[in-house]
């Protein structure tokens, strides 16, 4: 039977005609990826500014009088929700997923480009709805990023009117947008791989994004349902999540609902969400480490199965976020057990990254620095996660800065390290220009050391018992004066790291404007996206013929081969050997 890959049917391609169809209403996965990434980073900058304002209040209480308690809670809420959902999820899956999946598996585009385009426009709509909540009476919601009822929709909470409604509407639209994109990513990986690209030859980036998208398709429904039910509670006066209670001296009009139900639904989404962000990061960083260490990834199969195992386990650990909510003790036992099991596949991944570096011919480029920075921050955040996974240790630490430090180390700094590693790594392919190496290194060292200056002391504050979520600490016996001084120091470091990110944007724009032209394969990488006929790749990616894949994506430093890498699409008989008489022997992948 003749072999026609799905994404290689010429009449399925929608060639752009005008500027508008090429760059705005585009169905090209690469343009959609850049639209996604640009929007996500722009909204991420808003969240970064909000965190700076929070740190100003925490570090120097009573100094910045324009920050009222209500506004502080609004900053907390919006910072958390934007960073987790609208920046990281959208950037990893909408941005890197869109850009890399078709290029790395050798497809011309996503299988359903029109739906892919709709996905971006719905995402933009959800962002606009969220941003609109800054401008409504009462401001955005200040319910905390977990939006727990009853307080989220009860009078007296900041933004309990229009703010929370816009937040819920925005989340529901985001879920719709994600579903449209996610169906495309999974189906493309399954159905549009080029000849020879078996699942076990795919780069780990694709594996991470693939499994994370499946998690998203199963986890976001819970968020959608809880958003729908809570907006009914607010708008129609139903009592899904609202118990009978007295608020501000008056009996509210609700009875018989279950606030714990919301927590279960929210965390059934919320915990897989951690891995929706982490798995793409795991995948991308594996590719960056392997390429710049000039070594094959250590234990490729184990890496794949670890991604799959973590993805599966992430659905049965959600209640470890609810140890202090009140649960049957046996539940706590079960969820602590499953939570700690996740440490096993995660540790396999960490060991394999380190072993990939072992005896490698490491090139300390900017993406490699960020990737190695990730290993440090991730080990840190992961180990404190083992503390918090135990019920008895979690109970005293749960409402302190220890949780803030753990969470930001493992899910804030680590994925952001990978975001920067990946942006620097693929920037030459995406833009066709090289970035400024010196500015990149300043950016790395400032960010890496700066984030440690922020979050390491927070662990200590947590052990002291300094509570999180407080607008101001006031005077209490158990919080010593030194804690206030430490808080001020943390704030200085946070503002420094925040401002330092300007270096990144200067580097990007300067390089786009006047960077030197990039080599099509500047890192001597093996995977397909570096082997496109044009840099940056044109619409349709591959010219007339799709590439054929002969091996996995990690053929670095093979014995006897002249160059230290063998591209995935190079036929075995064309591989140049050091000794011309010798014949190239294919590895088992």
């Amino acid at each position, binding site marked *: 039977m003749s*072999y026609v*890959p*799905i994404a290689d049917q010429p009449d399925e391609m929608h060639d752009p005609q005008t500027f508008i169809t090429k760059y705005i209403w585009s169905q090209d996965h690469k343009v959609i990826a850049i639209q996604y990434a640009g929007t996500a980073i722009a909204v991420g900058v808003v969240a970064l500014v909000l965190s700076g304002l929070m740190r100003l209040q925490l570090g120097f209480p009573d100094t910045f009088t324009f920050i009222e308690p209500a506004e502080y809670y609004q900053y907390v809420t919006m910072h958390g929700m934007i960073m987790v959902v609208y920046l990281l999820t959208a950037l990893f899956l909408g941005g890197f997923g869109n850009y890399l999946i078709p290029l790395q598996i050798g497809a011309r585009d996503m*299988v*359903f480009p029109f739906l892919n385009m709709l996905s971006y426009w719905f995402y933009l709509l959800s962002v606009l709805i969220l941003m609109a909540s800054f401008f409504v009476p009462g401001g955005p919601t200040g319910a905390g990023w977990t939006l727990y009822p009853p307080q989220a929709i009860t009078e007296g909470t900041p933004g309990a009117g229009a703010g929370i409604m816009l937040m819920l509407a925005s989340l529901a639209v985001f879920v719709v947008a994600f*579903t449209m994109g*996610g*169906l*495309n990513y*999974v*189906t*493309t990986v*399954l*159905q*549009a*791989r*080029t*000849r*020879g*690209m*078996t*699942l*076990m030859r795919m780069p780990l980036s694709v594996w991470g994004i693939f499994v994370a998208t499946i998690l998203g*398709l*199963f*986890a*976001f*429904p*819970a968020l*959608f*349902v*809880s958003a*729908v*039910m809570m907006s*009914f509670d607010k708008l*129609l*006066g*139903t*009592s*899904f999540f609202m*118990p*009978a209670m007295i608020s501000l001296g008056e009996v509210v*009009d609700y*009875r*018989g*609902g*279950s606030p714990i*139900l919301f927590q*279960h*639904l929210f965390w*059934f989404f919320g915990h897989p969400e951690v891995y929706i962000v982490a798995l793409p990061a795991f995948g991308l960083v594996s590719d960056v480490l392997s390429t710049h260490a000039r070594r094959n990834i250590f234990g490729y199969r184990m890496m794949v199965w670890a991604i799959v195992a973590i993805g599966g386990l992430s659905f049965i650990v959600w209640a470890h976020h609810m140890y202090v909510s009140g649960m049957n003790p046996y539940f706590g036992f079960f969820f602590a057990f499953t939570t700690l099991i996740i440490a096993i596949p995660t540790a396999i991944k960490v060991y394999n990254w380190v072993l990939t570096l072992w005896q490698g011919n490491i090139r300390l480029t900017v993406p490699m620095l960020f990737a190695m920075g990730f290993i440090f921050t991730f080990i840190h955040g992961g180990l404190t996660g083992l503390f918090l996974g135990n019920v008895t240790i979690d109970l005293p630490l749960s409402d302190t800065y220890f949780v803030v430090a753990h969470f930001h180390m493992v899910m804030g700094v680590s994925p952001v390290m990978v975001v920067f590693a990946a942006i620097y790594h693929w920037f030459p392919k995406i833009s066709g220009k090289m970035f400024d190496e010196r500015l990149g290194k300043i950016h790395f060292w400032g960010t890496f050391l700066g984030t440690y200056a922020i979050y390491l002391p927070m662990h200590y504050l947590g052990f002291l018992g300094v509570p999180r979520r407080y607008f101001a600490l006031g005077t209490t016996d158990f919080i010593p004066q030194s804690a206030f001084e430490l808080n001020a120091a943390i704030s200085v470091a946070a503002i420094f790291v925040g401002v330092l990110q300007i270096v990144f944007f200067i580097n990007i724009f300067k390089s786009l404007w006047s960077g030197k032209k990039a080599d099509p394969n500047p890192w001597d990488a093996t995977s397909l996206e570096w082997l496109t006929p044009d840099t940056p790749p044109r619409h349709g990616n591959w010219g007339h013929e799709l590439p054929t*894949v002969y091996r996995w994506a990690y053929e670095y430093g093979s014995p006897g081969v002249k160059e230290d890498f063998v591209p995935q699409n190079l036929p075995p008989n064309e591989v140049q050997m050091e000794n011309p008489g010798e014949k190239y022997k294919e590895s088992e992948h």
Partner: protein
Amino acid sequence: MSSLDIAESKNSQEFVEDWSADKQTYHVPWGKAMMWLFLVSDTFIFTCFLVGYLNVRRTTTDPWPYPSEVFALELFGHNLPLILIAIMTFVLITSSGTMAMAVRYAHFRDKKKVFWFMAITAFFGATFVGMQVFEWSKLISEGVRPWGNPFGAPQFGSIFFMVTGFHGLHVSIGVIYLLIVASKVRRGHYDKKDNYEIVEITGLYWHFVDLVWVFIFAFFYLW
């Protein structure tokens, strides 16, 4: 390698290798794969709704209304419990049958029959939604509201309107989807590439909506 060979491979390693091989061994059209994925995702939405229902039914402090009284209908002087819902369920299950006929004739490229069976399916779907509108207006006229009702727990009305409304929305979208595909079938749109997969994909969606109804029926009306 045919699907038969895959089923017969005794070794689990071989099985994994077959399924992880490149496109040549995995002949599922992308549209069908994508619809299956969507349906699994949608299953999670309905499951979350039903879990929410089970939960609030336990947490509410008021007694839960007795379904065979609430959903009874006075017909010809007899008080018949669940009669409307029985008819609705029958209509919807029948529409699954006519949809299956449409898929069968799509394999034979019998354009006319495909069109008519899809149109009949859409008609049954629209009938179902119409009867649901009748049921809703009857309940509303009896004083059932999302925030309360005269029969007992206020959550009864909230969850009933929410879940049947969400399902009714699925049926309505399905009717529109069916009519669009049916009219395209009649115009010969799918003859250009001789590709009638879309009929089967529409059928997947339609059967799913029917299957979900079976669960809603069991959970809301029989318990």
